[in-house]
């Protein structure tokens, strides 16, 4: 028969252990996002234009290529960075250039940004440049939003759908 003091000792010690486990298994709480604010997420993946325009090979140049490598166009792999600007009620929230993925910078450009904002009605202007042009934007959309606290507003972009779209 185990000594009674050890049984009592177990009960006391395990009570402390249980309190520790019970508490830290879901406390203290953590504030990931200020509950009084809404959130704008800019998230999409987009393949921008090639850095250099494709050039048609001359017949001589095609003849110089190995038979299995012959093609009509010479295209560089590298793509231009994607530049995006988000303005809310005239204030710039995001203005940033994103480099394409891949070792040769030939992949699509992934954008994932979160911006906490005051809830309520706002006018958003989203602009995107994905070409070699130095000024201006290739796409621009204006949208009015009315967000509640914690509400998520996603700015997405798909070229085949005509540019920006919102969720």
């Amino acid at each position, binding site marked *: 028969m185990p000594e009674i003091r*050890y049984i009592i*000792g177990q009960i006391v010690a395990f009570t402390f*252990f249980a309190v520790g486990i019970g508490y*830290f298994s879901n406390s203290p*709480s*953590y504030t990931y996002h200020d509950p009084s604010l809404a959130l704008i997420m800019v*998230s999409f993946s987009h393949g921008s234009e090639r850095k250099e325009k494709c050039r048609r090979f001359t017949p001589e140049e095609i003849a110089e290529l190995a038979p299995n490598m012959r093609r009509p166009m010479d295209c560089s792999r590298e793509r231009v960075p994607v530049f995006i600007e988000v303005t809310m009620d005239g204030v710039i929230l995001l203005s940033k250039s994103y480099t394409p993925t891949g070792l040769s910078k030939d*992949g699509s450009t992934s954008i994932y940004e979160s911006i906490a904002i005051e809830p309520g009605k706002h006018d958003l202007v989203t602009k995107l440049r994905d070409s070699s042009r130095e000024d201006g934007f290739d796409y621009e959309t204006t949208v009015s939003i009315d967000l509640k606290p914690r509400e*998520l507003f996603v700015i997405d972009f798909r070229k085949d759908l005509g540019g920006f779209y919102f969720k």
Partner: protein
Amino acid sequence: MLALKKVLRTIFEHIEDWFDVVFGAKWNPLYQLGALGWFYYWIVVVSGLYLYIFFDTGVTQAYTSLEYLTHEQWYAGGIMRSLHRYASDALVVMMMVHLLREFAMDRFRSSRWFAWFTGVPMLWLVFTAGISGYWMVWDQLAQYIAITTGELLDSLPLFGESIARNFLSDAKLSGRFFTLMVFIHIALPLVLLFVMWIHIQRHASPRVNPPKELAIGTFSMLMVLSFVKPALSQAPADLAMIPATINIDWFYMPVYPVLNHVPGLTVWIVLIAATAFLMLLPWMPPGKKIPVAVVNLDNCNGCSRCAADCPFSAITMEPRSDGSAYEKEAVVVADNCTSCGICVGSCPTATPFRTKSELSPGIELPLDPIKALRDNTIAASENLSGNDRVIVYGCQNSLDPKALTDANVGVVTMPCIAMLPPSFIDFVLSRKLADGVFLTGCRDGDCTFRLGIKWTDARIAGERDPMLRKRVDQNRVVKYWAGLTRRKKFFSEISGFRERLNKLALEKTEQSDVKENSENNNA
């Protein structure tokens, strides 16, 4: 590093002293950390199997199936869910304390690198399996985990498309995702079980079950906790709304809040560097490699006691190679040998009574030959006087008893107390080298070499070969497992023993006086 280990070891030893008072040495959970880890693992598996029966892998059904279990079937499913969560949390606690304690006790270097090295990857498996479990609930916490884990994975330059993006709207989420999570949540614990099995491969008689009473105690604790504070889901995930204030499980997700402030790539670098550092720790610096046990075939009769007693599976019994009539011979696996000498203590030929031939047992440590142990014993006894002469045999991993050396106490130390063949006790007392023998070493239940105390206790009690001969007066043999911290009690045990020896001497004198008087009267 040495100073840190010393400080940690002292802290552990003091806490363990308290736990010995509360639990008793046999039930002390700090001596059973690995076994408790196994126990919690099995609770998680059994409760998880029950939950799996009812879990539905649909986007909305995942949450509702768990709500059903928690509220409609609280008496079974709810309890199982709580056990699943709390046993998982307890597993993390056991694992981390186990890791810290093995480091503090310096039981991870030299020949003992293997258990450490295979133990570190388990951290990743346990944390990943646990986090995938929280993901399956698909509540606000799961949504937070999904977004944050996605962002963490996106920080690696491996994925073309953003993973976190999948959790920004319901449109991209399907039941297949939950099927994948179920697969991960089952596959990872299975891999974990395999690694746990590898982890204990170099341990003979590994402790994978805690003592029954401790198991009952810890299981009762989990049951009571499950009733008092059942594990609950948070509000259901809603991808149109961002999770704000979340109750996170700090045992599994201490890194997650950091991700809100530190770039994901930095977190990856720190985690991978920390893992690599931990895995390579046994070689920073490498432990001192002491010459391992050597078999002397001329004196080995292949009895296999050394193989049975070796705590680290460092001895195998192989067919005889020297043409002897004996069937087997002991072979030392040098990589596994910790040079503890427990094999020497088990060898029937390691007897100090041998006089006709050189004292050379079938197996021994090159740096601590058994002949030297006998010579040291004789030397330690030479200057003793009185009726309370004591030979103290101690191990080199607990407090140093050499400070005791005086006119009444001689001290002999060795790597582990189980290196001492019981015949040495008989030798000391029958040759009247001392009036008593005092054995000391690591604390009971926590031998540096795992099984040294257990085997010594069994040998002295006559329960395991080689046994202490019955002719030895047990009143003249005392064991006290002092460890490093029980100095005061150790000294009081020694002086108490000496008092008892004086009393025994007095009683003996009185008995001989009575006998002499009666003989005189008869004459």
